[in-house]
């Protein structure tokens, strides 16, 4: 049997998996339309041990973001994952951070100046909508699990022939 014939034989047996793979590729690449027009967003962000206020910011892709960054107690920092923006602020001073939200998804902003015991866990969240990575991940998980269950259904038990491998069945 040639390699091509073998591939077709495999596909006949595992067509459910094949459809699942096609669907998974589909949900990972399907274009998600931008619904809202870009705006300018001005946000006051205050840092204090060991949290940011607000701790979660929602904006949309394309928005111009102006962050007025302050610190309430000790020196704090701001580092935005995925954007690489970094700033440092002393109490009583306001620093302005500006950027355009070009990437969608959830990006954590973190304190980048050692500010106390829980400093490594001082985190906030910037969600740039539409949150494509999250919804694609959810769709991917759903497609994957349905594919597996469908495969188990159509294989009529042959997929658990390995169930007792290396075991002493009850």
């Amino acid at each position, binding site marked *: 049997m040639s390699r091509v014939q073998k591939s077709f034989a495999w596909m006949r047996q595992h067509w459910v998996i094949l459809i699942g793979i096609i669907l998974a590729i589909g949900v990972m690449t399907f274009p998600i339309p931008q619904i809202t027009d870009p705006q300018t967003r001005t946000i006051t962000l205050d840092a*204090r041990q*060991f*949290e*940011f206020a607000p*701790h*979660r910011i929602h904006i949309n892709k394309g928005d111009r973001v102006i962050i007025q960054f302050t610190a309430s107690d000790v020196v704090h920092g701001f*580092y935005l*994952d*995925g954007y690489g923006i970094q700033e440092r602020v002393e109490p009583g001073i306001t620093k302005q951070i500006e950027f355009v939200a070009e990437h969608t*998804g*959830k*990006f*954590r902003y*973190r304190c*980048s100046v*050692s500010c106390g*015991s*829980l*400093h*490594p*866990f*001082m*985190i*906030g*969240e910037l969600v740039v909508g539409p*949150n494509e*990575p*999250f919804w694609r*991940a*959810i769709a*991917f*998980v*759903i497609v*994957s*699990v349905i594919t*597996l*269950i469908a495969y*188990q*259904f159509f294989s*009529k*038990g042959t*997929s*658990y022939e*390995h*169930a*007792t*491998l*290396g*075991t*002493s*069945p*009850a």
Partner: protein
Amino acid sequence: MIRSQRINVLQHVPFLRGILKSRLFQPVLTISTLFFFTLAIVTGLFGTPVGNRNFGIVFVWIVWWGLLIILLVPFLGRLWCAACPIPVPGEWLQRRGIINRRKGRLSTLRWKFPKRLRNMWLQNFGFLGIAIFSAIILTRPEVSAWLLLGFSLIGIVLSILYENRVFCRYVCPVGGFIGLYSLMAPIEVRVQDPAVCATHTPKDCIIGNEYAYGCPWMVFPGTLERNTYCGMCMECIKACPKNNVVINLRPVGSDLMVAKERRLDEAYKAFIMLACALLYSVVLLGPWGWLKQWANMDTLPHWLAYAGVFLLANLLLLPGLFTLTTLLSRRLGGIQLPLRQLVTDYAYTLVPLGLTAWIAFSFSLVFTNGSYAVAVLSDPFGWGWNLFGTTESAWTPFGSSLMPFLQTGILTAGMLFAVNTAYKIAGQYTPDPRRALRGMLPIAGFITSITFVFLWLYLG
């Protein structure tokens, strides 16, 4: 017992047997790790109190933890236990030696470890006891150092009282989850032919001989079917005069299907580990500052409330929800099995899910904070040293753009493995594959829901 789909590594890499038979094998590993362990304690006690500038915090809770959960446990099972420095002083005291096998029995008081404690419950409660203080332990070098020192002292005391590695087998809170998750590892220490062991009466692997000690983990390799309690110390390979003990490569997660050894204490370990991965993701990686403060014991009432909810979620909420799901599964699948046993069996589906959840959590922790290690290497105490010229290296998180893909990929893999395991477990109790599938559906729903929660926490 079916032993197909195994590749005997020692047959394909013959020189490995020589290395493993050498009495230097384990001491080389343990002496190396003991050096770093001692440094972690000393820097913790005498170094800077700033966690991210202290070797004790950075190397234990970021470097070691990352290596353990992302690489060692998934790929090499319990091999870390062979290198672990914690029980080493106690073991050396028992053996009155470090490398060579000394004649005679181990030097202990030969107490008998209580039968009712010969399970994973101590490890479960020990892990929870530490977990409720985790925000403090992970960030305070001194507390972390005392904890490590305490582990070692308990190991020594237990080695004086009892023979063998009672600490590792029944007490070590880390060893408990390593044991459970090593069920997934693609590697195992097993006998090649059980019939050889059955007829070989001297049982060198249990009582030892001039080349090796009897199994320190109190396991008989001849009947070993799971990785959970094998510390991979390789004493049995040294002891076996028949060369019947081998290292196999095998399909991932093979041990999950060993039905006869499933136990409630291990099932609870699976619940606890999954719940802790969820709660740590909320508390440590989430944006809720007040929750971090409560976990950090800003006031005693806050911490008590936090600890209460933490324990409740671990001991009642998650197991309770899982029991209800199992009840539904039993009804749908028509599985005639006591609920307690079915809950115990199905709980093993949470092993792949829990392991991948911990890997996803650790990706975030390690990739974000791993760069602290570069500076700490040059200045382990935080005293301003610059041993390798890297003290001034800046904190730089890396891989943040890759993180959603890594976390989604690993969580999906764990979820699929868990759902497939649920189907196989259901199949062990019903000959009809359609009934097995119906029975598995509620468990698949539970597993998928937990995966959604993780995805929301990391990406949503």
